[in-house]
């Protein structure tokens, strides 16, 4: 079953319509509980597609159906709720809050979890334990390695128990071994029932992907199955 569907989406950057077109009449279906890799060279609109799914960029044309709802029919406030309930984000540069410890970085991701700060902290520590960095809970991001920071970012993405995880070049800033570990974590999450959309130009990500969306220079899409 498809959880995300792009229906003839066109998007261009710039104030005037038609400026710097990124994607034209783009159609895409992403199945539930799968890893979908959007693959292609830089500048072809991979991150733009991810941002459109997250409700951060509104396309000029077309519909984006997520969980049977056109997300761009939602108000700004409803989009905030949609993002916090259904989407978990992982970035290439991790983007942790430097003033927070690892555990607090996870806690701030728990917008939809009810409970006291202490209860949230407990859940956050469990997530960090699961990602094998429970001992780094009280450490500030600047003192963590790249791999450890990415694990904290993954824990934050999981904090709201979102259905969909969007990963923008999740291994782009990591060495080969650490990248392999992160791939393993994403695979494990898929097995637990998460839908994962990865944007990457890392060949190794193909190995864990169920579906690959190739972007070419003419902004057309071809879909292939591994």
């Amino acid at each position, binding site marked *: 079953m498809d959880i995300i569907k792009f229906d003839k989406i066109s998007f261009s950057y710039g104030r005037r319509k038609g400026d710097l077109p990124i994607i034209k009449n783009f159609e895409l279906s992403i199945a539930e509980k799968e890893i979908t890799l959007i693959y292609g060279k830089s500048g072809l609109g991979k991150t733009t597609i991810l941002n459109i799914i997250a409700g951060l960029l509104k396309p000029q044309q077309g519909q984006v159906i997520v969980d049977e709802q056109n997300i761009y029919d939602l108000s700004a406030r409803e989009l905030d709720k949609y993002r916090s309930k259904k989407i978990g*984000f992982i970035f290439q540069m991790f983007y942790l809050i430097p003033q927070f410890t690892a555990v607090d970085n996870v806690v701030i991701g728990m917008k939809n979890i009810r409970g006291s700060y202490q209860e949230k902290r407990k859940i956050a520590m469990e997530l960090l334990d699961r990602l094998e960095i429970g001992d780094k809970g009280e450490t500030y991001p600047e003192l963590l390695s790249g791999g450890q920071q990415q694990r904290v970012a993954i824990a934050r993405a999981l904090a709201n128990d979102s259905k969909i995880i969007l990963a923008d070049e999740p291994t782009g800033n990591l060495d080969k071994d650490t990248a392999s570990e992160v791939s393993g974590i994403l695979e494990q999450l898929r097995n637990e029932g998460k839908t994962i959309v990865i944007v990457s130009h890392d060949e190794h990500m193909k190995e864990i992907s169920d579906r690959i969306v190739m972007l070419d220079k003419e902004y057309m899409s071809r879909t292939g199955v591994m």
Partner: protein
Amino acid sequence: MNGLRMVGLYFKKGNYKLISLIVILGLACSFYMIATLVKESYSGNKRIDNNRLVVSSISNYSYIEPDIIEQVKHISGITKVTPSRVINIFLSFDNVSKEALGSYEFIIIPESDAVSDLIFQKSLKECIAKIDAEKLICSYQANKIAIESKEIIYQDHEDLPNHISEDLVDGFWKIDTEVLPVKELIIDIDSVTNSELMLKELFKYGLKSQNSERDKLQSFIATEHDIIEALFYVLICVVFIITGQLLKLLFRSRKQNVGIIRILGYSKRTVTLMMLAEYLLIYILSMIVMICSIFLELLILNYGFDMDIILDIKTFFKGYKNILVVTLICGSLINVLLSIYLTLRSNLNIIKTEVKV
């Protein structure tokens, strides 16, 4: 509700790096206060507030009599009346300008044997003629000289005018200030007891006096004090501009956080509250640091807890010639606020501007 809790968490957890900034802000503010003290000590007896007392002494001695200074300190409650701040102008009576004398509200001429000296009398007479002060205090012997050059309301015990009560208190006569049209007053300060009581009366009355016109005139007179003051104002501007830039840097560092928190699904309102909570915290803590450091520095400099210094901030902003400084300070603050606004605006509207984290 969860959003507000996150505001609390951000407020509580996100500020460990702010301590250094707060200390800098506090030091900057206390630096301002110290600069105020330095400025005051350089400006000698000239004070900013018209309602405050300025004391000087015309003496035939080469130094100011300590008991005079002590009396003034004791009665007025002003602790900063130090000998170095009291000018002995006896030796240069001829050179004393009316403007210089006019800057003192109270001029004390202590008892002196030299008053009987004819040369001294001549100089003193000329000097008194120039005096534009509202209150003139001089010794009994000096009275006679003063009487000749000024319309004196009162001279001594034996010649009390009607409007001065004869209710003697410890040998001193009580002045009915409501009846007495005091413009120039000469009173005997022969005895310590009498002079204390007299000063009490005069200070009580003198604190109500206003010399704004005279001060305005003097403010246009270029002196070395003005140069020091100008430097002081430049210093203040620099301090405020640096403080403003520090705040700008802080909010630039928070730019990334705004983007991240918005992507995590927090509303614009929540993120704005987070930023404002942090700003409020900086403000309150920097004020606490500033006040503590002021008192500490005052103690170190042995000035005591003189609230006059604190009041100087208020009068500083009232001064008509400080418009430029106030404009610069306000400009600096507006610059900071504009920076905060632009940071929030560009990062809150992530939907329009892409994910710029």
